[in-house]
């Protein structure tokens, strides 16, 4: 039990601020944005402080309202979720900073409600990560999901329908998860994850446990948009407003992946997941097909944002593959990829959001010579694209390196081939865009856009600075991954692998 109050600040500050914002917005609309940034900054700072404590002291337990577990709710921070919490809060802060100009441009009259929902979404995601209680996780899952449905529905024409579709899938996923929790509660009488992990091994033969496990996995698979239950994602993230898609795309699926790790390797023992039921094996085969199908479907898209949505489906496949490989290198790759993919997707969706809101264009064929207007945005797009392809020294290479080692360790040559081939697919995907942007004959641009079309029209600083920070992260965290692994990730690998 820790006496430090940082763990609770991670959650409570954005939660309270999100309720405060409608009231403040009623009084002074312009105060909402600074208030949100302040809340996100405190949350980010607290999560860094917590991570620091975890690195120094090991696992932290925070009992909510001083109720002892398993009756009370506890927040547990080990290396895994302290790390994921930092990722979530940092990305939310950066996207929060950049949201201002997009909000003002696209739906300025709804700004108050947007900031409120934005904070609720972040609260939900952070809550999922920090909680050590299976039912509490469900509550946060619903907070995040409901906020997400509302945020996505703000978007353009197809958005309400896409959001409705997402809600149907999301609700099924959440129900499955809740059923899983319920079954385990019937069996053990406990909701606390650590408690469950202690009670369950004796009950592994029970069909109820197997059932609960199956519900968990399918529910989480829907939430993390794992192929073939990814169908809600492309529509939802394509039609969502830029400020929203750049928040939910990098984070929601990653948090889902985190939950998958927790369930498979903390609540249930690795020996159960690997040997008693072939869950890990099934997961790895499903994710290998997710990688391939994501890439192939992305190839078929001409709408840039939609293409990214399918790339995201493939990226989720990478993380899930690492989880499914169930060995040290595979998990290292998966956890590292949670970080790297969050960075890559945040910068890609931000860049595309800027392009779309500045020019109103969406089809990749319309972006000829756009880099003359927005050199920095496009440069960041290229950096993130190279990272998705897995070109060193960007960070995307290093997570793929560990995934590759993990697949080789298991002698799964097919997965090795899938991992390598997917890099080539991604190369085709992104170099197609790069070619259209940078290598189109310039006379067409002069012809189409006129001389004023060539002048510089870069994104505002509030978007550029977060994007540049993300790009620096992509460039630097790759070579620093050795350090990250030796201080954090190697302790985050579930025991027993």
């Amino acid at each position: 039990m820790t006496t430090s109050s940082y763990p609770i600040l991670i959650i409570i500050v954005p939660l309270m601020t999100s309720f405060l914002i409608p009231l403040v917005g009623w009084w002074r609309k312009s105060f909402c944005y600074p208030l949100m940034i302040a809340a996100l900054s405190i949350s980010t700072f607290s999560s860094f402080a917590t991570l620091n404590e975890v690195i120094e002291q090991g696992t932290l337990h925070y009992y909510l309202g001083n109720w002892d577990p398993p009756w009370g709710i506890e927040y547990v921070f080990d290396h895994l979720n302290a790390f994921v919490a930092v990722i979530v809060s940092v990305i939310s802060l950066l996207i929060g900073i950049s949201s201002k100009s997009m909000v003002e441009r696209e739906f300025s009259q709804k700004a108050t409600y947007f900031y409120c929902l934005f904070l609720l979404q972040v609260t939900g995601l952070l809550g999922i990560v920090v909680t050590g209680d299976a039912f509490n996780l469900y509550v946060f899952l619903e907070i995040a999901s409901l906020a997400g449905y509302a945020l996505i529905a703000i978007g353009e024409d197809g958005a309400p329908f896409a959001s409705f579709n997402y809600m149907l899938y999301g609700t099924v996923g959440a129900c499955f998860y809740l059923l899983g929790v319920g079954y385990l509660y019937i069996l053990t009488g406990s909701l606390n994850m650590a408690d469950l992990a202690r009670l369950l091994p004796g009950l592994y033969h029970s069909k109820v446990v197997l059932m609960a496990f199956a519900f968990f996995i399918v529910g989480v698979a829907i939430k993390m948009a794992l192929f073939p239950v990814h169908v809600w994602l492309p529509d939802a993230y394509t039609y969502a407003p830029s400020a929203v898609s750049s928040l939910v795309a990098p984070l929601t699926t990653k948090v889902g992946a985190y939950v998958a790790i927790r369930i498979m390797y903390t609540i249930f023992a690795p020996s159960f997941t690997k040997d008693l039921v072939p869950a890990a094996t099934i997961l790895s085969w499903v994710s290998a097909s997710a990688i391939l199908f994501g890439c192939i479907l992305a190839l078929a898209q001409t709408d840039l944002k939609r293409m990214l949505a399918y790339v995201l489906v493939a990226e989720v496949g990478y993380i899930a593959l690492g989880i499914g490989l169930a060995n040290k290198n595979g998990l290292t790759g998966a956890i590292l990829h949670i970080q790297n993919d969050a960075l890559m997707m945040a910068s890609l969706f931000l860049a595309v959001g800027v392009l779309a809101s500045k020019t109103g264009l969406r089809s990749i064929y319309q972006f000829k010579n756009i880099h003359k207007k927005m050199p920095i945005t496009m440069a960041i797009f290229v950096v993130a694209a190279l990272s998705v392809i897995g070109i060193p020294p960007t960070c995307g290479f290093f997570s793929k390196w560990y995934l590759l080692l993990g697949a080789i360790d298991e002698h799964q040559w097919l997965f090795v081939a899938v991992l390598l081939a997917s890099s080539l697919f991604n190369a085709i995907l992104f170099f197609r865009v790069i070619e259209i942007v940078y290598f189109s004959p310039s006379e067409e641009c002069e012809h189409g856009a006129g001389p004023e079309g060539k002048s510089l029209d870069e994104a505002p600083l509030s978007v550029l600075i977060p994007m540049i920070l993300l790009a620096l992260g992509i460039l630097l965290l790759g070579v620093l991954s050795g350090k990250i692994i030796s201080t954090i990730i190697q302790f985050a690998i579930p025991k027993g692998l």
Partner: protein
Amino acid sequence: MEVVPSIRPLLAILISGIAAILILLTGEDRKNLREFWTLLAAILKFFVVISMIPTVLSGKVMEYTLLTLSPGIALQWRVDALGLLFATLASALWIATSFYSIGYMRGLQEHKQTRFYFCFALALHGALGVAFASNLLTVFIFYEILTISTFPLVAHKETPEAIAGGRKYLAYLLTSATLILFSIGFTYYLTGTLDFKAGGFLENSASNSLLCVLFITFILGFGTKAALMPMHEWLPTAMGAPTPVSALLHAVAVVKAGVFCVLRVIFYVFGPKLLFDLNLGLLLAYFASFTILASGMLALVQDNLKKRLAFSTINNLAIIILGAALLSPSAITGGIFLIVGHGFMKIALFFVAGAIYVQTHKENVSELDGIGRAMPVTMGTFAIGAMGIAGIPPLVGFISKWYLGLGSLEAHEIIFLFVLILNALLDIAYFFPIIYRSFFKVAQEPLRAGIQEASMFMVVPAALCAVLSFWLGITPNAFVRFFEMALIATKQILKLG
């Protein structure tokens, strides 16, 4: 071997990386300042590189470790004789090429010159990183930087052909990169280390058949950049790039980085002993011999001058690999020294091809009748370079050929001596018609009046390289003691003394 810690390798690599950023920031509007950065970086880089020669010649190695990338793998550079030889060559010729590109790019009023100089500097960053890298992962990082930074140079003209060339280039090199990545991952799986070790580190790590497969994937991977047949197709197509690119990158930095990596794999990963025991050296020698003869014959039928030079490059790269594959001391020395000799000779030839193109816009051999009378210095340079490639004494090409011939006798494989002799005849057959046409044939239609020598920026570097290849032929240890470096590298590889 004594290890001297020193930051100089990192400095030498970083200089061009920093220059690339400065070039990008300076931009098109201040082009004199932009070119100043290129020249400054080239000269500084050369001096940093040659400052390491005395230490390395005394049998020591210089080492710099930046950080740990992954357990047992560091981002580390270690300067040994082989790496320094390649680095000295690349950085010396970068100076010549920088002057030449200024004349060429301005003479043709090429577009997007900032991108050109940026990518060029980045490519040199990659090349030196490859030269100094002390392990396979560090090599791979810089190898990929080299690959990606060269793509915009290949597609520079932005015509459909140039873009098709760029695509082909990426398709070949990225596919081969996946093979390399697999091989590196597998090597790590087998041995737990990736550090180069003179004499290799793979012995007894796996069954013979597995090692054979690994060797083949390594050679297919790195051999693509070295344009080993049948993976050579990209190189002639890439000749659509501006001539400075063909000259420095596609005759020296890029393709030689491929050859260099093949040598590293042969001598520092597998080791001569293991390759000899597995009979893989002989296999590679036959493979290379096929490339030597086939590319020589294909060069005969190319009418496009740069393509003919490209096939001649393929030919010479395969000779270097043949030298290494023979695994006998003289052959290794001859092969390594040919890296230098071919660099100077071929760059002079490409400079000439570019000068002709700038002055007359002619690209085909059949259009060169009588051009030697209008441009005597340029074509004289060509004649010297061509004779050097053909191995006529006293030019530098002869020394390598002589040692290679001795080496094939030392290895008791006399058949390769015949390959070399046949190849010399082919060299003469594809080069001498050009010399004959330009000097002794009278143009069918009179040459456009006013054709004269190209600007001093282009003629001087070309003539200088030709003179140097003559000089090195007489005193192979002139200036920076290339030959001694080749001898020391051979000694280290074979652990003689």
